[in-house]
């Protein structure tokens, strides 16, 4: 069950320029949250007043049930994330969560590919851990502008995953887009993707061609985070060929089946 709670920040660290990692003590959320879910955050401080007015959705980057903590990793974009980055250990943060649907794990699929790009790498760590726990073979394709922006790289290097990397500046792995490496994959049963729309669209096209099922994690501007306001909708194919519906990214997503997402509209 989702809840709204005010929690304490355990640590906050700038892990690379403009990228922050925040650990929050929230045992109940840590206990319930599943890979792919997100939080809807507000900075608790009388002094900030109502600017920005709305909350900010951020994915769970790690869920530590034992310690009762959750971790988020985010990039500073505008005023909201800038404010978030000014918080320190001991400060309080107002969060709603865990929200949204989680990634689903198919029993039959054993060879899994996960394609993450940029900030879209952030929600993948709990998924990778879950899949490894289930003894799946995981090929992880990570793309970013620079090596520094490859979120959780060090963690992944320690895990038993087949890691493939592409950076725009060539500072790590192959120079170019991570989707360039899709052709290297073979015999994949299931693919997960999260990242820029253009990347996910390419993954979807590739998966369709290769007849691979999978899921994508989407981002949309959110108001309520509860399914009430209908601001976060995305176009999802339903029924016959050209039919589609607006579905809510916050409650029906953010995870949607690959092949059904109509990107770029």
């Amino acid at each position: 069950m989702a809840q709204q709670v005010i929690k304490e920040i355990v640590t906050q660290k700038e892990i690379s320029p403009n990228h922050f990692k925040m650990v929050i003590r929230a045992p109940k959320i840590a206990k319930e949250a599943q890979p792919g879910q997100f939080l809807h955050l507000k900075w608790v401080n009388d002094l900030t007043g109502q600017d920005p007015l709305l909350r900010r959705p951020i994915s769970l980057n790690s869920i530590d049930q034992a310690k009762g903590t959750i971790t988020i990793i985010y990039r500073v974009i505008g005023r909201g994330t800038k404010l978030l980055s000014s918080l320190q250990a001991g400060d309080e943060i107002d969060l709603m969560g865990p929200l949204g649907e989680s990634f689903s794990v198919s029993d039959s699929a054993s060879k899994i590919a996960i394609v993450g790009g940029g900030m879209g790498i952030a929600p993948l760590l709990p998924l990778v851990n879950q899949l490894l726990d289930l003894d799946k073979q995981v090929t992880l394709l990570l793309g970013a502008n620079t090596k520094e922006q490859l979120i959780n790289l060090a963690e992944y290097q320690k895990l038993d995953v087949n890691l493939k990397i592409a950076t725009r500046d060539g500072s790590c792995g192959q120079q170019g887009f991570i989707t360039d490496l899709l052709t290297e994959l073979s015999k994949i049963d299931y693919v997960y993707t999260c990242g820029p729309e253009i990347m996910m669209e390419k993954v979807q096209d590739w998966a369709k061609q290769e007849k691979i099922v999978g899921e994508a994690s989407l981002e949309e501007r959110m108001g309520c985070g509860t399914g009430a306001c209908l601001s976060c909708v995305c176009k999802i194919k339903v029924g016959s060929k050209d039919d589609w519906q607006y579905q809510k990214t916050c409650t029906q997503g953010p995870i949607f089946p690959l092949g059904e997402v109509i990107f770029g509209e």
Partner: protein
Amino acid sequence: MSKVNLAVDLNGLKLQNPVTTASGTFGFGEEYQDYLDLDSLGGVMVKGTTLHPKQGNPTPRIAETKAGMLNAIGLQNPGVDYLIKEILPTIKDYDFKTIVNISGNTVKDYAKLASKLNQAGVAALEVNISCPNVKQGGLAFGTQPEMAAGVVEAVRAETDLPLITKLSPNVADITEIARAVEEAGTDVISLINTLLGMKIDIDSQKPILANQMGGLSGPAIKPVAVRMVYQVAQAVDVPLIGMGGISNAQDAIEFLLAGADAISIGTANFVNPQVSMEVLEGLEDYLVENDYDNVSEIVGNAINNSKL
């Protein structure tokens, strides 16, 4: 046990307290069940409903502004038949009063909606003559007294349910519209809907909303909303439900003092899903601290006091 009487009777629409949630911002109530005790709300105005299902506008549908937000949802909804068959049964057991907000492209649409909902077991209808996000109808009905009255009369003819008419703030003289819908037979007036606004992204040099324009809500519009309630309260005799930018109990009390008999909370639900409970508690505290027995004792006090 409450020490003050918070119950309000809006011309036949009886609410256990004056705190309601505004249409389009609270779904069908259930979306918020994890966050608060829905049973303690006075009423829930459910999402704007149309005769046929609507996909709504393309995204982005919202944009933030200073102390406010713009929305152009475009009335996405599953249509009145689905509402009656699939949704209303799931919320009928809550203690709050379910009020269905209806929108049409034509006067006939409104009448049909009213007739379909008449026996649907809802507490009241809120006639939205003020949605700024649909091309036809909507806004036009809300800005011309005769058209506004026409819609209300048509709906009135189809239903015995308490009738709330929701006014648009995008007018020169809101009292004119208020008087017209009162004469046409509305039981209650609710106000305000959103102000028409717009935001431009200076990098892409385009409006942020796919729909270009949208409705401005939130704390930014509160002064306009309070003023309109204050004006309409002096122009008509029907009870008012005031809204626009209410974020806390103080804001809600301002609306009551301005002449609203009940209030509705919109955008603030997104910021703080428990805001309606906090408003209810804060209102009760204020009444107790100031020795009132009944919430109605403060309604319109700012009008009387400013005439002293």
